[in-house]
């Protein structure tokens, strides 16, 4: 399995993750830790549409304009955060609400063991919380 998880391009991805950092402007943020190892990921989301007149819950049709994440984690959790935030950009809240755990594992494209699924799904779980 090592050849799959720790191949060169994955490690490069880990060292230079996409959308890493806190954007200047964001409407929603959420933070979660993985109880299995203490890793944490915080995600920041800004929608394309202007938050109009005090609506606190963004409607389903709104698209994500900016998304970023920060945190500490292993290769799988950081790469998952990187890939997921990149995937989410420009997608509507509705599209992302339909996005399932299986979709996340497919997107990651790395074979993960049962115990490492918690790492693979940490960013996913944070994004879901942002979309509630």
């Amino acid at each position, binding site marked *: *399995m*090592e050849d799959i*998880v*720790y191949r060169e391009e994955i*490690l490069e991805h880990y060292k230079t993750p996409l959308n890493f950092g806190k954007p200047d402007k964001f409407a929603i943020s959420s933070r979660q830790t993985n109880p*299995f*190892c*203490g*890793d*944490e990921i915080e995600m920041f989301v800004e929608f394309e549409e202007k938050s109009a007149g005090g609506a606190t819950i963004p409607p389903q049709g709104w698209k994500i304009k900016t998304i970023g994440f920060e945190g*500490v*984690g*292993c*290769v*799988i959790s950081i790469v998952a955060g990187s890939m997921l935030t990149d995937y989410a950009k420009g997608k509507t809240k509705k599209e992302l609400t339909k996005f399932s755990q299986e979709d996340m594992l497919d997107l990651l494209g790395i074979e993960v063991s049962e115990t*490492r699924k918690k*790492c693979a799904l940490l960013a996913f779980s944070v994004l879901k919380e942002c979309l509630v």
Partner: protein
Amino acid sequence: MKNYKNDFPIFNQNSKDKQLVYLDSAATSQKPRAVLDAMDEYYKNYNSNVRRGLYPIAEIATQKVEEVRNQVARFINARDASEIIFVRNSTEAINLVMNTWGDMSIDMAMDDVIVATIMEHHSNFVPWQFLAQYKETAFVVIDITGEGYIDVDGMYKKIKNAKILAITHVSNVLGTINPIKEIIKKIRIVNPNITILIDGAQAVPHMKVDVQDLDCDFYVFSGHKMIAATGIGVLYGKKKLLEEMPPFLFGGEMIREVTVEQTTFANAPFKFEAGTPDIAGIISLGAAIDYLEDIGMEIVKNHEKELLEHAFSQMEKINGLTLYGPKDIKDRSGVISFNIKGVHAHDIAQVLGDMNICIRAGHHCAMPLHKHLGIVASARISVYIYNTKEDIDLFISGLKKVKEIFKV
């Protein structure tokens, strides 16, 4: 250095090129044939419930279980076998004390203080934190020094008005062996009314423990970390305390007499052992103690010390590797936690795992301690009697491979 691997069937089923290197005994230990056989013998030859059947196999089972109780009492030098209560594991033992002694003794009106340390495993931290919240009383946490020792001076101040101190004998992360005997001696001078519970999960498997010499009130440990089966653990408690405590779980085997109106309870230890116990587990614990005593706890301790030194001296030389806990090997038991700069602990463990080298990564159920150390996770090796220097060498070459892959 003697090789004990042949006694442990798990090590005999691997091909030479991918032999099992098991360095996670602080999580759970492997089991020798003698332990597996003892359990097998019970199920095959005298499987029956204890303390009720009046036929020969039930007599044997009952007798075996009580023999193990005596054996455990001797092993940790309890004054009396009735001070030995069979539970599932250390966690259950601590919860038993928290629920019975804790509920009975902690009083908000009296400003009772509950004290634990920052190096506790969650199992000896969360129950006390919960009890303090439930009783609306103070929960005080003792610090550690930069080197990973208990801050003893701070401790003597903090326990002055404490009702209970919960402290581990050996840290499952730092490997620190706390000087429990000296600590208890001094504490009893500062605060004669305190009750002291020792978490011995990482101590009893690795060194000679004498509960009378330590003078603790409660001492807990798990069988599965000392080559016995999972599902069996021990609570030792001073007789006087056990007699005062209310029962924990209610049901069969813990009663003296039941009428429609009222129930009277059996004496300790049976008062705390409701329901059918883990008979096979208890028998496995007896066989495990036999095995360890046959080798001798002093030899077990020295065997691990030698492995620890072997690992330590090589790990110190690895660039970017941080070791946690005391530098002085004589203050440590067989656990080494570490991190490699630029590589997450999970990734270290997975690369090694792919080589069939089993180590632990994460917070090892000690989140407050990791926070205190300023890290989210660490990697950990832990050794036992069946480990060899070759295991350590394979682990070290695994670490080199990790560094290669991650280019650090």
